[in-house]
């Protein structure tokens, strides 16, 4: 009985390097984390050695600056205003976009005549007319929301129209023959069918809205984010700039994530169609 354990062949012991390599080969997430930590460490080290502290703050200095920057009621107010503008611009894009897209997409005639117009307007590079938005809507929230809507609305319109095109006529006929009226057909057949393409549009609309609102925010230097970025860079306060940029990045990640989760939830019951 005792001889069994001794006669077992010895497992060749792996070198620590090989084991480390295997660990990361099996866990890409861990490797990603290590890369991120390494980059931050590199940033910290270069901030203390080769980089001019007037231009690049190491992460530790930025963390120390957070209470000072966010404690400034003006900065906090500007961030909140931006958040409201983003949410409002997104909401307006979605509602207006759906209201515009449904009449266009439901009929062959409107589709053929109005879709080219939508595409024509979509092809204008909006950044060229950013100064006009400020001229027409002022330096306040209006111009930023309006500019965000011009970026956010097109993905909604185009996705909803595309979704309507895949609506099977048989479904409409079936609903009709079962005695559904127009409103019921819309609510029970058209809207559920639109959900996946609408939510795919929502994700694109969110990135569009973020781009539009933040562009306008940075462009207008009379107040809001644009004022503070200008102030911080002119007073050589890179920690404050990084804090502000970091807060905006978190805002963007948060909003993108909300839309992504909503999309997952809303279309769980049907397979993604592309």
């Amino acid at each position, binding site marked *: 009985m005792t001889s069994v354990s001794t006669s077992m062949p010895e497992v060749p012991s792996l070198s620590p390097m090989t084991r480390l390599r295997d660990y990361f*080969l099996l866990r*890409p997430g861990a*490797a*990603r984390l290590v*890369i*991120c930590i390494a980059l931050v460490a590199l940033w910290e080290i270069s901030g203390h050695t080769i980089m001019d502290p007037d*231009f*690049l703050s190491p992460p530790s200095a930025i963390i120390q600056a957070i209470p000072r920057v966010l404690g400034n009621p003006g900065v906090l107010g500007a961030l909140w205003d931006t958040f409201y503008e983003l949410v409002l611009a997104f909401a307006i894009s979605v509602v207006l976009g759906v209201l515009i897209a449904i009449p266009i997409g439901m009929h062959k005639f409107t*589709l*053929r*005549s*109005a*879709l*080219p*117009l939508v595409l*024509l307007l979509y*092809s*204008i*590079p909006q*950044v*060229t*007319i*950013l*100064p*006009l938005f400020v*001229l*027409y809507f002022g330096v306040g929230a209006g111009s930023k929301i309006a500019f965000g809507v011009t970026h956010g609305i097109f993905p909604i319109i185009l996705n909803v129209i595309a979704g309507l095109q895949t609506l099977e006529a048989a479904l409409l006929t079936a609903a009709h023959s079962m005695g559904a009226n127009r409103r019921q057909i819309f609510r029970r057949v058209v809207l559920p069918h639109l959900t996946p393409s609408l939510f795919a549009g929502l994700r694109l609309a969110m*990135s569009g809205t*973020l*781009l539009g609102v*933040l*562009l306008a925010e*940075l*462009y207008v230097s009379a107040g809001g984010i*644009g004022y503070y*970025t*200008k102030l*911080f*860079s002119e007073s050589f306060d*890179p920690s404050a*700039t*990084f804090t*502000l*940029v970091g807060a*905006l*990045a978190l805002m*963007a*990640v948060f909003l*993108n994530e909300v839309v992504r989760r909503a999309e997952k939830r809303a279309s769980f019951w049907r397979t993604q169609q592309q």
Partner: protein
Amino acid sequence: MTKPGGFNWVALIVRVGFVLGVLAVWDYVTQNDIVSPIFLPPIRLVAVKFVQIIQSSTLYANLWVTVVEVISAFAIASTVGLTLGYLIGRSRYATTVLEPLIAGLFAIPVIIFLPIFILFFGIDIPSKIAFGATYAFFPIVLNTIGAVANVDQRLVTVARAMGANEQQLFRRVLFPAALPVIVTGLRMGAIVAFLSILASEQIAGLRGLGTRIVRLGEGMNMAEMFAYIVFVIIIAGLLNVSLTRLQRHFTPVEARQ
């Protein structure tokens, strides 16, 4: 909608009609003083200004600045993007680890980081090049990774079985198979570089088309500003059309719609 290969006449008529209608309304409201010329300059004045600016050296000096910025940014973004994209896409492990990292980073609007670019590279041309290059880098690298990683593995296996070495594999199999998707990334990168550089010139800059538009607006030279905007829209349209043509050229016939 349209028959394949057929020409959508309705689309053309609607578009031309819409543009003419907008121009007519614009002319009417400005000629009859319904809208203040400070908000909307008379279209006839804009037309006169447009003819003037395309004969002026100011336009070409600013155009030259923007063109140099866009070309430099695109050159940097495509060199780095194609190299990194190829190296990452070749290894399945690197793709699994790095692709989500790059895609996740791209979900944050790069425009947020513009203040940092200005902090590092100053307000003049270098910050525009760096910003445009960063923005254009993402579509190029992501498309290249996708293109190289998704090359049909059977093709690679067959080529290896027939004795292709690494260089032959790249030249004869990987490169041609990945080219259409890579070209899509390059086209997106070029357009993104142009638009982001215009935007950054508007937000903070000393020269270039974007800065020129903003300066004219600040000086209330509305007609000339509109003329510049029209010029930039035409340039953007030409860029878009020519790049789409170029891309079609690289797309295999069977993949065309």
